[in-house]
């Protein structure tokens, strides 16, 4: 079994081709996506049936999953939820429907990002790279916020010595906010810093993930004390950090 710690994975990314699992039932789309990924130095693996996706994921342990929502067998939403239950691996949804409900449902079931079909190869690669990019800046390695202790290099968050499981994306959001306590981040800035979007994108990405993050780190998610909403502007880290 490979070590799944994000730090370790970052090292993998530098040392060898990152493995990308493409879950899509259309052979042409899968093959073409494979060509594009290979051209950019990634190693694609494929799965064309919803019922097999979880097995392939467990066997291949990919670094990023590209997941089509409409699949024969188990739906993309269910697969997303099941993978999330056992791993924080970045999941990017490929959606043919730009239907709002589907996008929100996908994000809520644990997807980190989404790319609407049809997409340009460059856009897909940018989204994949953003999810592989690690927060490697030389900032303090341990940040405290409220009663949370964040070990940035070790990718661990704990409260009173008890570790809280966060996905790499949720961890990125928390660290971005916590490094500048009190500073207000607009949704657009967060999209750029965390998701790597260069231009205006779907701000629902931010809303959904803030909700998920709060559900994990706040004592009372209804009255957040760590990730605060600044009405009409965005979010900021609250609590007294030392």
């Amino acid at each position: 079994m490979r070590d799944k710690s994000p730090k370790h994975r970052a090292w993998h990314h530098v040392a060898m081709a990152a493995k990308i699992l493409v879950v899509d039932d259309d052979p042409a789309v899968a093959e073409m996506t494979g060509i594009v990924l290979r051209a950019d130095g990634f190693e694609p693996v494929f799965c064309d049936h919803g019922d097999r996706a979880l097995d392939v994921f467990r066997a291949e342990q990919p670094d990023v999953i590209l997941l089509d929502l409409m699949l024969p067998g188990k739906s993309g939403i269910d697969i997303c939820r099941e993978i999330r239950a056992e791993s924080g691996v970045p999941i990017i949804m490929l959606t043919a429907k730009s239907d709002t409900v589907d996008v929100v449902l996908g994000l809520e079931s644990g997807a980190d990002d989404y790319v609407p079909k049809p997409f340009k190869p460059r856009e897909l690669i940018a989204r994949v790279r953003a999810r592989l990019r690690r927060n490697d800046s030389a900032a303090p390695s341990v940040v405290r916020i409220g009663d949370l202790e964040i070990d940035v290099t070790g990718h661990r968050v704990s409260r009173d010595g008890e570790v809280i499981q966060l996905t790499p994306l949720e961890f990125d959001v928390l660290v971005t906010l916590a490094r500048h306590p009190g500073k207000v981040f607009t949704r657009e800035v967060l999209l750029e810093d965390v998701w790597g979007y260069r231009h205006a994108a779907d701000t629902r990405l931010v809303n959904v993930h803030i909700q998920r993050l709060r559900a994990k780190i706040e004592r009372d998610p209804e009255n957040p004390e760590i990730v605060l909403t600044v009405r009409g502007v965005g979010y900021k880290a609250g609590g007294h950090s030392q």
Partner: protein
Amino acid sequence: MIRRAGAIGAMLLAPMRKLYRRWTHSMLLRVITSTLVVGLAAVALLGAYVTTEIRDGLVDKRIERVLAESARDVDGTQQAIDASTAETPGDLQDLVYDQFEAQSRLGGEGRSIVWLRSPSNDADIVLTPPVTEQRLVTAISPALRESIEPGGGQFWQFTTMPGSDEPAVVVGAPIHLRSAGPYELYFVYSLADEQETLALIQRVLALGAGVLVGLVLFMTWTVTLQAVRPVRAAARVAARLADGHLTERMKVKGHDEMATLATTFNDMAASLQRQINRMEDLSRLQRRFVSDVSHELRTPLTTIRMAADVLHDARGEFEPAVARSAELLATQLDRFEALLADLLEISRIDAGAAQLDFDEHDIADIARDQIEGLYPAAAEQGVELRLWVQAGRHTASMDAPRVGRIIRNLVSNAIEHAQEKPVDIAVASTQRTVAVLVRDYGVGLAPSQVQRVFDRFWRADPARARTMGGTGLGLSIAREDAMLHDGSLEAWGKPGDGAAFRLMLPRGSRGLGVRPPLPLETTADGFEALGERVPLATEAVGL
């Protein structure tokens, strides 16, 4: 100042308006009021007539009696005087007193007596004329005294008792006192009894009228309520139906007109329910179809898109004809994608499946972002974009991506038709409305074209190519998007003078205000008055 005056006016008007609202909203109130007004008027008229008749009858009879009595007594007195032999002043005075006493006895308590020396009396003997009460003299008017002539008949007049407002009748007659000359004899009859009787009758009448009006009101109220109650019930059920409770029905009781109303109403509701269910089924089918088409089309398109881009990126290695083909493939694919996206969007709106995500935004910020984004394309066409924003905030609840799309569509449409002249964009708001005006000075539109400009796939000039890559659906979608916000999108144009498009969105739930924040027709000089010129970031970069 004007505003304050207006506020005070509004404050004064508010209760009136409330009253008017109640008046127009309640049939019961109107019927009761009408009944009350008509009933009171009828009773008042009737009462006035009856009282007058009774009073006249009472008084006439009394006067008849009074006149007969006084004529008899005057006659008796004159005869007694004529029969007497008194000649000396002392005897005459005694005679007068005797007569006075006799008259007082005859007349009883209701009658007072006044003797007066006639003004034309020039006899040497001066007697003291007796009176029951000295102040009664003032009750006798000079006009009455003038009409009484020696040897003439009796005259009478209404008056009031001095010292009180009791009505009274004065009857006067001449008396000849032998050598003492002519005197006048007045009887003053009090009408207090008649007045009392009349007052009693009036009280009884008023009481009767009050009871009658009350009874009529109660009857009207009961009858109206009987008629209004089923109507109100129908209104309530209709409101529930309108709210989407399609299974709501009226209760059918008995076999009268109200039961017919209820039955007909229920038939209508059932028919409506059937229609709506069918529409919903159709809409659901349509939505599914759009969704399926979307998915089925996008899947192959995804492959084509990636393949085309891979070819396009590698075109440097191809021979010129193949390289150019790869380029054309990629650019036309962009156009195809835009067209597909617009088509799907418009079918989604048609199917009523569009979902809006409302949030407070400043429309000036959205306009600015879109204009910045279009600046390079405009510069490429030699078109200058100028943004004018009225001072203050222009926030409203809106779906930002849709509003952004409306503005993008309007501005790119303006750039396409600007003929290298500038395009002015103005943003302003009133209390209830935010507005964006996009004005170009290019080819313009004829009135007949203005009507068709929002039609799908319509082109003002079919020979012209689409330079901005428009799909022909942009303005239609923009109009639909404005409608989804309960707003409006209007067009104006004049051949050779350009065209203007005005988007207006409501700021609250009360809809658009009456006064538009921006005029639809303006000239290029007019924009300075509309707002402050906002510098664009892209201008500074020198694009």
